[in-house]
């Protein structure tokens, strides 16, 4: 499989804290690559640098061979990177369908279109509904987003990411705050998605990670200490020591 995302010696520090301390990472096309690590390991900081909302101090990020290190977030999104947020980040006062429609609309390149009402543009709505169907939210399409439950918000985050048609989905703890049942549903759902998209998944739920990931990278104190298949990671001594705990 060719490499889709390549990160070379990425560094970012906040004051004296080296949140990202020379990260090297390769995400292959079509794989589901999980990043695990203890709290404060710098997972979200890493994702934020990949999607462009935080600028790295040094290092390079390439997407399908193009250097995107200095590209702003909206340009990276246009190149096919999308992210979901650990803390739900949706347009709360807009309808569920509008949240997704805005993602569909983003694919046209720009939206300096002033004349036709957005809700009269059929294909926007249809594609939005299609993405909502994939996550099972189609019956909430016309509700105000703030009225949805936490679990539904997590589903909607995924629907929005799907609707962007991104080649690389960065999912920042999609199970955060979900109950055991909801987690199972989400895991099953992500499993269904596997193969059709390249996914970089950050997750604390180890059952989910080991069930889903093709490869796993372990991030500790801003450094990747190991990368490999779930079996390799399970048996890696460094990882056991640093993260899983010795038994």
């Amino acid at each position, binding site marked *: 499989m060719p490499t889709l995302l390549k990160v070379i010696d990425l560094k970012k520090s906040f004051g004296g804290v080296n949140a990202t301390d020379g990260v090297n990472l390769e995400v292959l096309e079509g794989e589901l690559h999980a990043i695990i690590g203890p709290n404060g390991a710098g997972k979200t900081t890493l994702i934020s640098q990949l*999607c462009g*909302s935080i600028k790295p101090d040094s290092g390079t990020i390439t997407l399908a061979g193009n250097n995107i290190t200095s590209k*702003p*977030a*909206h*340009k990276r*999104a*246009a190149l096919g990177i*999308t*992210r979901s*947020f650990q803390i739900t*980040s*949706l*347009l*709360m*006062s*807009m309808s569920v369908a*509008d949240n997704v*429609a*805005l*993602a569909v*609309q*983003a*694919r046209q390149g720009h*939206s*300096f*279109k*002033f*004349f*036709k*009402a*957005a*809700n009269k*543009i059929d294909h*926007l709505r249809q594609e939005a509904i299609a993405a909502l169907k994939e996550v099972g939210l189609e019956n909430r399409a016309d509700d*105000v987003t*703030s*009225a949805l439950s936490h679990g539904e918000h997590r589903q909607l985050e995924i629907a*929005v990411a799907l609707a*962007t048609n991104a080649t690389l989905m960065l999912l920042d703890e999609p199970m955060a705050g979900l109950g055991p049942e909801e987690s199972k549903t989400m895991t099953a759902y992500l499993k269904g998605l596997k193969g059709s998209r390249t996914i970089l998944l950050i997750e604390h739920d180890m059952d989910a990670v080991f069930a889903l990931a093709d490869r796993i990278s372990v991030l500790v104190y801003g450094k990747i200490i190991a990368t490999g298949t779930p079996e390799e990671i399970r048996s890696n001594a460094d990882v056991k020591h640093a993260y899983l705990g010795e038994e």
Partner: protein
Amino acid sequence: MKALSKRGWITLLVMVALAILPPFFLWNGQAFYMDLATRLVILAIAGVSLNLLLGYGGMPSFGHAAFLGIGAYAVGIPAYHNTYGGFEIAASYSGVYHIFLAVGLSALFALLTGIICLRTKGVYFIMITMAFAQMIFYLFVSFEIYGGDDGLTIDTRSELPLFNLDEPLQMYMLCYGSLVAAMLIVRMVTRSQFGMVLQGAKDNNERVVTLGYSTFAYRLTAYVISGAMCGYAGALLGNFTTFISPEMMEWTRSGELMFMVILGGAGATIGPVMGAAIFILVEEVFSSFTTYWHLPFGIMLLGIVLFMRTGLLGFLTADRSKTKLKKEER
């Protein structure tokens, strides 16, 4: 035809009342009320333009009166030179030229200041828009030739095809028609794909950026549209009052425009029109009792901000069932 919503009915009612009542007053010999209504409608246009920023874009511009001033001086200065000579290239009584100038200069001012202002948000945005408006204010105070802070009398109103602005009824019809047009433009823009991005960015900017939108460009465009529209209102205001002074772009004026939008209800096209109506009426009624009318007005405003958070329109259209109300207040 779809059945009208509560909001639709209120819009229709207010606009029909504004179309019928003032000409009736004029016919009845109460020209004063016609004057009041003309001022109301012009301020409503400014309010509608500000609402595009405040209500739909989440950009609380506290310098919108600057555009009113630019628009008014775009009428006053060419007319002044046409009467008294000097500065020949700009001198003209032509209304089309005045409006072109008012809209063009306002858009340019919005573009230049917007590039800077829109790098900030919240309180900082309020402060910096106000600062730019104050700069324009002092610029005109320092123009001795145009009367400085004493202001400038417009001897001859803009000459327009179809409308004779010296006729109160025709003046009013132009202003009313302009208000309807402004409302339709804002309605169209906010419902378009552009409008969705603008409102999305108000809700959650980071989310909209990560979808691939450069929200800055969308905000700047909205800022320019709004400024141009307010400049147009300024050209009407100059023609209506026939006296312009820097006082009309003082920061308190910007504050009044903001009151109107919040009073009526931000985020609905008819909101600022209702706000302007309340403002004009309250000013008229309270100031007939006392010169200290700002005090009861301020108390009323506090009451609205505290108890009717979605403005008068929100109060009138609110679904009284608890859950719905909560949804709307979010």
